């Protein structure tokens, strides 16, 4: 049997590349290659048609570029087609918001999202959410191949938007520290089918390798496959990532929510 193949596309890094989220694509590509998957990592800039890929990552960015990215992806149509055929998508911050039904533009008017997640984002009225975020993956969250749940998520959030998860999607996680979706229900992120959205930077997949492997397993499993046919990934030596996770969780455990930096940041302009 030939080696499995995988294409990972980082969507519009020229517009949505402000927060180091391009690292998610690198983490996915390396973790696939280390398991002898033949992987192609594509930097899919906004000046050309979006290529077909098995796995897309959409990163954070400023308000103006976020609107341009949403318009470009809607006109291009490839991302929605790919999702309908089983492609996997990870959206972060501005990328998460534009996967939803609507998000605020730089003048706080609602702008159409791609509608790939039943999530609606509006401008928050309170302080901007800036800081470390820890969230426990919800019971209704995605399951790892074999049926296990994901461990807690850790990352850095930096957003002014408030996201409400509609009935067509489910919250990804429950906030333990930080703000997350910010709508008062204590949730963070959303997921539906093979599409996941989150506010976590870091990048999120460098700090949460189980989530990276879940996305890889989905991308390597044909849609509709029986549970016994789901791709199983060989374990990797993740001691450095685990040490980083432990250190970040410990750092947040010793700090209070909000605090000085959240107040300073609340005076700064919105980014996503």
């Amino acid at each position: 049997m030939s080696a499995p193949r995988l294409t990972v596309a980082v969507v519009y890094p020229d517009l949505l590349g402000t927060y180091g989220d391009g690292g998610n694509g690198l983490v996915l590509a390396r973790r696939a290659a280390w398991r002898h998957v033949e992987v192609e990592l594509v930097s899919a800039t906004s000046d050309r048609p979006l290529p077909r890929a098995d796995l897309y990552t959409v990163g954070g960015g400023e308000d103006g570029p976020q609107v341009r990215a949403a318009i470009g992806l809607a006109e291009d149509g490839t991302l929605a087609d790919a999702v309908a055929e089983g492609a996997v998508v990870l959206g972060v911050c501005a990328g998460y918001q534009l996967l939803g039904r609507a998000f605020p533009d730089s003048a706080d008017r609602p702008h159409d999202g791609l509608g790939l997640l039943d999530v609606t984002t509006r401008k928050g009225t309170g302080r901007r959410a800036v800081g470390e975020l820890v969230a426990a993956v919800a019971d209704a969250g995605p399951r790892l191949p074999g049926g296990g749940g994901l461990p807690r998520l850790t990352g850095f959030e930096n957003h002014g938007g408030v996201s409400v998860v509609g009935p067509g999607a489910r919250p990804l996680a429950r906030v333990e520290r930080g703000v997350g979706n910010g709508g008062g229900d204590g949730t963070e992120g959303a997921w539906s089918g093979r599409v996941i959205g989150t506010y976590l930077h870091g990048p999120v997949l460098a700090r949460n390798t189980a989530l990276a492997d879940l996305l890889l397993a989905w991308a390597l499993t044909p849609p509709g496959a029986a549970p016994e046919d789901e791709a199983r990934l060989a374990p990797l030596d993740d001691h450095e990532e685990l040490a980083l996770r432990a250190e970040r969780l410990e750092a947040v455990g010793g700090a209070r929510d909000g605090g000085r930096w959240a107040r300073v940041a609340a005076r700064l302009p919105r980014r996503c």
Partner: protein
Amino acid sequence: MAATAVSAVNGLSRALGRGSGTVAGGRAGLLLDPSLLATLAGDRTVALVSGTNGKTTTTRLLVAAADGSPGTVVTNDTGANMPAGHVAALAEAPGAGLAVLEVDEGYLGRLVEETRPAVVVLLNLSRDQLDRIAEVRMLVDRWRGALAGLAPADRGPGTVVVANADDPMVVWAALPAPEVRWVGAGQVWHDDAVGCPACGGRIAFADDGAWACDRCGFARPDRDAWLDGDDLVLADGARHRIRLALPGRFNRANAAMVAVAATPLLAAAGRPAGPAAVLDRLSGVTEVAGRFATVTVGGRPVRMLLAKNPAGWTAIFDLLEETSAPGTAVVCSVNARTADGLDTSWLWDVPFERLAGRPVVATGDRRLDVGVRLRYAEVPHAVVADPRDALLHALAGPGAGDGVECLANYTAFDDLRRRR
């Protein structure tokens, strides 16, 4: 009265051991008199230097270019580059007729308004401190608004803007200024300038540094001077060799900016000097607040290099390729304290892959983030908690025959300077 208070508070602050006092005194003075900065600037000849990277070094070089006798040139060389720091520096040197001030990007408009500078030097603009500094585009618009109101130099005391023509963000900001000298100083980081600031189109960069928007015609202006290898080339064809003790291409670029800026600045100050004379004065600068200095740790040489953001790290990697023997060990020390920015995601915008082939040691508060980044760059590395131990570890390992290179971000650099 307020100026006296600045000196008094500075002296008190120093006496109490609460630091150099530069910011405390300045803050107190500004509270007593909000117009103090304008008052202290008075009729001095002022140069302002701003940009994301290189402002401290360029400020230091411009002071060297001024070649003033003691007490005639004042500068804020303690890193305090906001108005409180400017006030403190100016208050301490009432007799200095020439002021060369490093300015935080966010305060350029206020400094331009209050100090009526003879020269404004604009180096570059790129992403920095994700969690707390305004977006690049917002800064550009604020710069542009401030520079549009300048008076031209040929009508009495006006302002010459010296701007990096190779950075589209800087060009967009400087275009409305009445008098601009465009310098092709190069740009290592294009990722924050792909979207055209004029029309939202796409800016394409050629290999030779030229750039243009594909939609609206916004393009690199005709340059008055540019860096070509080791030479400063003027539009009239004159070439001047840049000989610096400071290493690397980006320092030659900083020197090129200084050579062009010094001419109108020194003319305004009443002691004109041409580019060749100015460049000669720069070779005596061997370090800038410890940056580029070679120190000894455990009796062995360590070169100290500061890098704070993706553009800065990329420039330092260029410097290593130019000036450091292949295989020389590198220590990377990264913190994420207030002055550094709390979010370390930027590490993934830094091309750590370029360290392949060198022994690497990660240290600093956020060494684990650096270690994970290096793992995905497939660069073998060690992780050592204590920065000094990390240097000793690197010095004891391979690639340390001629010493090691130490790359550190802001507070990590300060830590190492103080603890050696």
